[in-house]
């Protein structure tokens, strides 16, 4: 059996993942609360008014619309809803499988290994459970993962290509303009780049994120202040960390223990991939650590806050690790002498 045969079979699985995502999204007509109360609401406000600042008018006290969330996803939805005319309410469910397919292709692109391993990454991303939950179809994480997988795909070329550095900066800026978790991921990536001595890439990305995403959004936010907060320094409670870790363990790790153990085992058997991809591993670790640290300062009941958000930020972190695990499968499946001959490992 050739790599191409295996890749074809995995390609079929990836297509099946995208197709089932479309069936799930279009098969339901109920929207998730975060779509109706945040993303879709803001898209509707922008589309109907033609003004960005309309997002602050729909919920002046900021009780449910999260005025602090950045606007790239509502703007994308608003533009497409405007183009779709009477079909505007199909935009979010139709975008869901499209974003799933793009993320799958970007995982293929980001994987530095043989054809079969790249197809494995594509199929794995397309089959992630997030894409089979109908009410998540209008949520921002679908777009966020696209930007982050695109960024992972640039890592290897940063030293030899100025365009790659510009693309990385653009992708991280877009991630930061999509959701706060994107800003956290961008900050983690920039920190790792700077510590690793990739100064040009780190500075370019920091400048892009700061000037294109953070600064304009903070100016707009300052013009429309809102009392709404999910976190506050004064709410610090160290006990929240134990609660957060408990929820992550019982609701995330335990139900998927076999998958996590397999991934950990494969990574342990692929030291070359771990060495080569240490930066991405560290950035994902920092991203998860920053999210968990955030729960120390939550103003919500911590168990509720973690349980409500875990599936989404867990999905973001998992998707970014998929190319690495696929590369590790590729390395671990080769015999060491063969790997030595080909210079891999």
């Amino acid at each position, binding site marked *: *059996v050739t790599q191409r045969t295996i890749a074809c079979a995995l390609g079929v*699985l990836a297509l099946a993942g995208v197709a*089932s995502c479309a069936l799930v999204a279009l098969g339901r007509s109920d929207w998730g609360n975060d779509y*109706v109360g945040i993303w879709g609401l803001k898209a*509707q406000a922008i589309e*109907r008014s033609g003004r960005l600042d309309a997002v602050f*008018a729909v919920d002046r006290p900021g009780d449910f619309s999260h005025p602090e969330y950045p606007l790239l996803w509502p703007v994308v939805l608003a533009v497409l809803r405007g183009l779709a005319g009477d079909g505007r309410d*199909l935009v979010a469910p139709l975008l869901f499988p499209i974003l799933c397919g793009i993320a799958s292709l970007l995982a293929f692109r980001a994987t530095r290994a043989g054809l079969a391993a790249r197809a494995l990454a594509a199929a794995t991303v397309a089959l992630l459970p997030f894409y089979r939950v109908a009410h998540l179809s209008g949520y921002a994480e679908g777009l966020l993962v696209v930007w982050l997988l695109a960024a992972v795909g640039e890592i290897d070329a940063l030293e030899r290509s100025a365009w790659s550095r510009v693309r990385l900066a653009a992708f991280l800026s877009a991630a930061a303009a999509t959701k706060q978790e994107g800003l956290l991921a961008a900050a983690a990536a920039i920190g790792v780049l700077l510590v690793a001595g990739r100064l040009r890439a780190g500075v370019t990305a920091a400048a892009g994120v700061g000037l294109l995403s953070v600064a304009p959004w903070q100016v707009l936010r300052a013009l429309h202040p809102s009392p709404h907060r999910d976190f506050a320094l004064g709410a610090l409670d160290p006990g929240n960390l134990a609660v957060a870790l408990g929820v992550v363990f019982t609701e995330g790790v335990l139900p998927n223990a076999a998958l996590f153990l397999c991934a950990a085992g494969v990574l342990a058997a692929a030291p070359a991939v771990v060495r080569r991809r240490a930066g991405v591993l560290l950035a994902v670790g920092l991203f998860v650590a920053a999210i968990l640290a955030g729960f120390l300062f939550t103003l919500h009941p911590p168990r509720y806050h973690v349980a409500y958000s875990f599936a989404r930020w867990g999905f973001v972190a998992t998707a970014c690790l998929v190319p690495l695990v696929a590369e590790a499968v590729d390395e671990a499946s080769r015999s060491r002498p063969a790997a030595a001959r080909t210079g891999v490992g």
Partner: protein
Amino acid sequence: VRGVGALAARVGVRRGLSAALASLALWILSLDALRPFGQLRALASGAETLLFLPPRERFLHCGGFRFDRGFGLALLRLDAELPADAEATLELAPNLKSDIVNFYRFRAAYALAPRNVHVVHADLAGGRYRLAGGAPGRSEKPVP
């Protein structure tokens, strides 16, 4: 990859692939294909009315009252009537729980965007609701 290949060769690649695809097709069918395409149906009937209630339920039970789809229809009508910069007032019975109030509130905001929606708790006999500038909505008697 070589190990996977050897295993696949032992099982029979074609047979294995056929079984995998058949399983996948069955799984997809069991999930969705037998379910009506709700979004398309919603589009045909005015999707926003369906935002207020689960699609296959006529009534939503909350706070001791049950509300029907007339609520969503009232919002749709107001959508055309209210100027874009108008403030809409949503009056809800005072005994509704805060999460139910929020549920109505952001759905009203979605339907009426970009208008701001105030929620007012009014002592409305029978749990009626009303939007400023529109006819009072319809609700049923409290559920015992």
